[in-house]
């Protein structure tokens, strides 16, 4: 008691800060609990999948039952499920994600090799989708019912409803292969050409490869930012401070950009933070259409086997990043919006 006394006093001097710290600590605790639950769920969830990884890997190869047993023992699959679980938890707590059944290499290495290209693609797409969504949403919400509002909202909703695979393949067929007068400008696969030049040339080559996958991802997801932004700007339009700004003689554009939008950004910021968590997960579909060498493809391959360690590793990474980003979103929201603090 005596030891903590000065600390408490110090904290009382800055109640706002103390509140934030306590809030963040509570959120972090919750996140840790979620992660622990995810670790447990991950193990049992994937064990529910039917299929024998050893048999799947041996398919098409002349292996005797003894050799199959040997392989099972090597992968630790001959042990009971509780034993396997204890081993898995121990390993995971030491940040060791194990060795992939199929690639025979540490899962962490396999993820490390692919996370860069996934982050590049999904990160760029996120930034573009957010910018486009906020920009269009703000304008649409400022003048609801206008031609711009109807047009942009309708387009974004149509794209939102389109299956990713269909849209991606369509873009591929039109802009990569070329149809009629449309030249096939973009490559049909991958992150770079086989004979890509070095230096700046390589950067531009990658940029060219990124156009179609990025476009697909942006087209399918930007509607959510647009709609959230639109509705929160709409909420601001009738507010008294807007009337005041108008009375001061400010131009309409300025009122929108300087007064309405900053106030309306809050829900969008939260949404963006939550989506950042999913950036790591990538987009399995988009990666599959454009043969993008990322995590999505690795995960998909892992499910086919099933390669338990690889699945657990990628799944853990994805869920943990979502949890972490959600927690951050909560904290950021707390900082940005005083109303949450007082509540």
């Amino acid at each position, binding site marked *: 008691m005596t030891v903590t006394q000065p600390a408490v006093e110090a904290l009382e001097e800055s109640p706002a800060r103390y509140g934030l710290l306590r809030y963040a600590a509570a959120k972090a605790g919750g996140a840790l609990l979620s992660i622990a639950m995810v670790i447990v769920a991950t193990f049992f969830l994937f064990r529910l999948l039917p299929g024998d990884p050893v048999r799947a890997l041996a398919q098409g190869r002349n292996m005797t039952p003894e050799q*199959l047993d040997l392989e099972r023992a*090597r992968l630790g699959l001959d042990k009971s499920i509780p034993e396997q679980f204890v081993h898995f938890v121990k390993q995971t707590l030491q940040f060791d994600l194990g060795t992939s059944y199929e690639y025979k290499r540490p899962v962490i290495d396999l993820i490390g090799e692919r996370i860069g290209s996934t982050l590049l693609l999904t990160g760029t797409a996120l930034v573009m989708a957010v910018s486009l969504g906020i920009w269009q949403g703000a304008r649409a919400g400022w003048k609801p019912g206008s031609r711009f509002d109807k047009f942009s909202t309708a387009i974004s909703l149509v794209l939102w409803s389109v299956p990713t695979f269909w849209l991606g393949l369509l873009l591929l067929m039109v802009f990569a292969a070329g149809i009629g007068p449309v030249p096939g400008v973009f490559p049909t696969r991958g992150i770079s050409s086989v004979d890509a030049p070095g230096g700046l040339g390589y950067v531009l080559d990658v940029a060219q490869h990124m156009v179609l996958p990025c476009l697909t991802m942006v087209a399918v997801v930007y509607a959510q930012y647009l709609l959230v932004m639109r509705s929160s700007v709409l909420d601001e339009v009738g507010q008294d401070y807007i009337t005041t700004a108008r009375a001061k003689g400010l131009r309409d554009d300025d009122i929108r950009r300087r007064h309405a939008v900053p106030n309306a950004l809050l829900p969008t910021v939260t949404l963006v933070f939550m989506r950042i968590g999913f950036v790591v997960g990538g987009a399995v579909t988009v990666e599959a259409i454009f043969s993008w060498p990322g995590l999505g493809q690795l995960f998909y391959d892992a499910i086919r086997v099933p390669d338990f360690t690889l699945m657990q590793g990628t799944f853990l990474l994805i869920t943990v990043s979502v949890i972490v980003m959600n927690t951050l979103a909560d904290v950021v929201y707390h900082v940005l919006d005083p109303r949450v603090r007082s509540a």
Partner: protein
Amino acid sequence: MRKLFAAIAALGLLVVSPGTAQAAEPAKKVVKVGVTQSVDSMNPFLAVRLVTGAIQRLMYGFLTVPDSKTLQPSPDLAESWKTSPDGLTWTFTIRPAKWSDGQPITADDAAWTFNKMITDDAAKFGNGPAVANFASVTANGQELTIKLKTPQASMLDNPVPIMPKHIWEKVKDISKYEADEFPTVGSGPYKAVEYKKDQFVRLEANPDYWRGRPKIDELQVIFYDNPAAAIVGLKKGDIDLIGRLNPPDFEAIKGDANIVQWNTQGRRASYLQINHGATTTDNKPIGDGHPALKDVRVRTALHYAIDKQKLVDEVQNGLAKPADGSIIPPLYKDFFWAASGDEKVTYDVAKANKILDDAGYKKGPDGIRTMPDGSRKLQFRFSIHTDTPIEDKLAEYLTGWFKEIGIGLSTKRLDSTKFTEETGVTALFDIAISGWSVNPDPEEVLGTHLCSRRPTASGQGGGTESFYCDPQYEDLYLQQQKELDRPKRAAIIKKMEERLYTDAPVIALYYPNDLEGYRKDRIASITPIPEDNGLLYGGSGYWPFYTVDTVTPDGGEDGISGGELAGIIGGVAGGAVVVALGAFVMMRRRQDVADERE
């Protein structure tokens, strides 16, 4: 502000450069092969995927290679070989050729490779089963001696690439070695010079290859994650060849003046697997198969009720051959067995009905037969995979035909892992679709119908394709394993196929064709394996990609090619976007400035 604009404009112009830069490179003969499977590892001791096996064939010599005409084992790194009378000692004479780094190839390299696999568990992943029967491997100069535990006729189909000892003995932990030092040291027609994970492998001609340098300079193996995109790539010219197409994708390349549709005999058999009373290795029943299917007469009646030609025409778009034999397709002339005479089953509904009538399976009022003791209706399940239109169509036809002989059939769609489990381990099926791609030596596919491949008592799968366990078949399997005389061995193998045909634990439906496509404006000539009506990609050995040649070297070409044009347009488009973005930013900035001045 001006500076910023200038910088953006300059960047926009630079985008154009990749297209033009390519044109300046010296003309190389390059062939680009599209594949829809990614390379799992460049280390042959670890790799298991088919695509990786194909690339290994191009990079390393093996003891033997299937002959380009007959598919019989022919000399590769082993110039010649002899066998002891008891069939247990094999002596190979290794060709005095050179590794791509100039070092001589000796029997010691081969002995090291095999011994590494025998002694180091980590080196067994890739091809472990191939050395399981090896008692010892020794080298003396160019002479390699392999002593076997039991005779093994398939010795000459050994799938292990011979590795250069002087390079690989330095590797400390084989399980962690990625073999990512380029160019690789090998003894095949090509050497790998670059590998990007999940993207491509670039191979360069090996000028010192003992058969002589390949005709082209570079072979690129380019990965596509899905066949639809690969077809777009072929049409556009991003790749020159793609193999292993399914009928719909094959139809999609029709009508392109620059693309050759390659439609030849394939190495696969498609068949029905029938739960004829599945058991485990301790001969205890397993699963829930319909009791009527234990009766060979019912299985034969099913066989008579299938119009295989119709299946080929309607289900496979005519791109297959109706099966008049068993699990080995006619591509393998030496081992293929076709039914004839009384044994031959042809589509005959009346005969099928008669067999069932005679066997006492009487039709009920609803037209469906019952067991002779009246206990159960002949209502079977047909297990297929989800999302496979071809199998759905097959199920429709079978249901119609079986109805005509008083047998009900309901379709059960399963995802692939569940399917493998139910039809290969737990035996929760009546009839299931199946198939197998056969190697030049058929021992592997024959092995999938052995008693020992059934699941164990504890429920571990052993790799059976039928739950078959037949003393006659087992006996023949052991005989062919010991028979080193090829024609005699083929005769035994044909008897095994005959047994499978008449006892019908599996019913072969058709042999799907090998469907591929390549650009004739890029590839001038390519020899399939076998040379007569064979495969390009996915066959055995290196022949097609060793013999491939391109259309006149690019050097003679004037103007810019389509690809370069596309590159330039792409660059310009990219540049335009950058410039437009720059201009937009500038305008916004100006406006801001104007606002501030107000």
